[in-house]
């Protein structure tokens, strides 16, 4: 043991370093870590705290009863308002109107869902635009679909 003094000193340094590390580590571990698993529980709360951008399903009905009634009675009943218009957050916050709700009248909006694609289910209403215009005798213009179809209740 006499001649192992240097080994003892080296090991002592190691012990001090290891102890310091353990101490620092316990300080650095976040308080909510490990509560429900190997993660920081506060993160769950951080996610939950974000504000939704799209509204609840019935949110538009509070102010727009007429359009909601037309929608629920027609073929577009399953389409959320925000799909064709825009997310609620840009229009209303905390019950106050903060911006306009865009209304798009272009045929490209309708075509997004309704132009014919082979991959679409066969029973889904879809048309080849040129053919559809020819049979109805219309010419292509921005708002051509709305000449015959009402946006909220499109059935003819």
């Amino acid at each position, binding site marked *: 043991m006499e001649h*192992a003094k240097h080994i003892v*000193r080296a090991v002592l340094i190691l012990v001090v370093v290891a102890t310091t590390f353990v101490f620092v580590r316990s300080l650095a571990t976040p308080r909510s870590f490990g509560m429900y698993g190997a993660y920081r529980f506060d993160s769950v709360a951080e996610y939950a705290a974000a504000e939704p951008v799209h509204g609840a399903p019935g949110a538009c009905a509070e102010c727009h009863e007429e359009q909601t009634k037309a929608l629920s009675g027609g073929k577009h009943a399953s389409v959320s308002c925000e799909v064709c218009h825009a997310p609620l957050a840009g229009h209303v916050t905390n019950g106050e109107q903060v911006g306009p709700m865009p209304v798009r009248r272009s045929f490209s909006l309708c075509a997004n869902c309704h132009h014919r694609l082979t991959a679409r289910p066969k029973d889904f209403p879809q048309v080849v635009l040129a053919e559809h215009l020819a049979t109805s005798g219309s010419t292509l213009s921005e708002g051509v679909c709305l000449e015959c179809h009402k946006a909220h209740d499109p059935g003819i």
Partner: protein
Amino acid sequence: MAEQAGYLFPNDLHILWMLMIVMYPYITGLVAGAFILSSLYHVFGRNELRPIGRLSLVASLGFLLFAPMTLMLHLGHPERGFNIMVTPNVSSAMAMFGFIYAAYLTLLLFEIWLVHRADIIVLASRSRGLLRTFYKVLALGVYDVSGEAKRIDHRVLVVLAAIGIPGASLLHGYVGFIFGAVKANPWWSTPLMPIIFLCSAIVSGIAMVVILYQIGMKFSGRRIDAPCMQSLARWLWLFVILSVTLELLEIMTLAYERAEEWTVIGPLLSDQLAFSFIGLQMVLGAMVPIILLGIVVLMSQYLSDQIRNTLCFVASLLLLVQVFAMRWNVVVGGQIFSKSLRGFRSGHSPGLFEKEGIILAVLIFVLPLLFIGLFNKILPVFERPESAEEAEGKQGLPAGAAPLL
């Protein structure tokens, strides 16, 4: 924007693990390889390797010190890097980095200190001023070089070197496991991955020591020890053959089984990685060195020292390139095809000045070499006859040296 062919998952357009993640296994491979080479001498008593016994340990340390730089340059949040040691997720192989690295660094420092302790004490007595204080601190204030102390040193050294073998293997093997355990990627996912990584790590470590040894001897005007070089060539040859066999075995099995992944891995190797895999990793990097080293090993008696040294040097340079190419082909190659197994994107070309760019990568490779040079200035890495005599336990201090206390 990357060129694409076929269908890639939309998020697969972005390559994540780039040059720095290729450098990391390369550098830790050099660490592990150099250490295992040193343990051939310190543990398994291959005395012909004595000339490079200390060099390989110091080379291991040099590359070890700069390995974390690669990771820091890659992380999205390097300032949070310490989280890996604060809240490690024990199911993640990557989390083991912090502890394995720290443990191995400790072990290596301890071992190098023990190997050099006699020199430290002698140098402490010979120097003056700040340098003297430095050596005295290194000696931890203990100047015992008696026979008994040397025996204790040696016993501890052998234990450390023995523990160090699995330690070094773990340090690099876990990197192989990081890739091998990703079931989502069929090019990475194989049980062979840690072993392939380790074998090619040993190849790169021995090759690096060959190069450093030859350059070191050239600079100091000393003779390259022929039996040592012959032994290095032999070990290098063995591990190259082993490494290439395993690499090819994996590919042959995939090609034979012709499961779903072969639809992407086949084209990957023959098209996208044609240059880096077939050209660099297999032909220039494996076939040529195997031939060159084969000449050294099998036709030793016909070779002059000069030819042997040159053949070994050239083979080692090619092998350093080969191991880099292997890391590149695994890391980047595994991200060139999409997880859809239906598409490819063009390979990643690192820029010069980026965070994960070529200049920084070269710097990370060169800095350890500078470290080794600096270390050699402070503590001699190549065994000198004088220090060997002193290590035999001469009690007295050389004439003209001041007492230590």
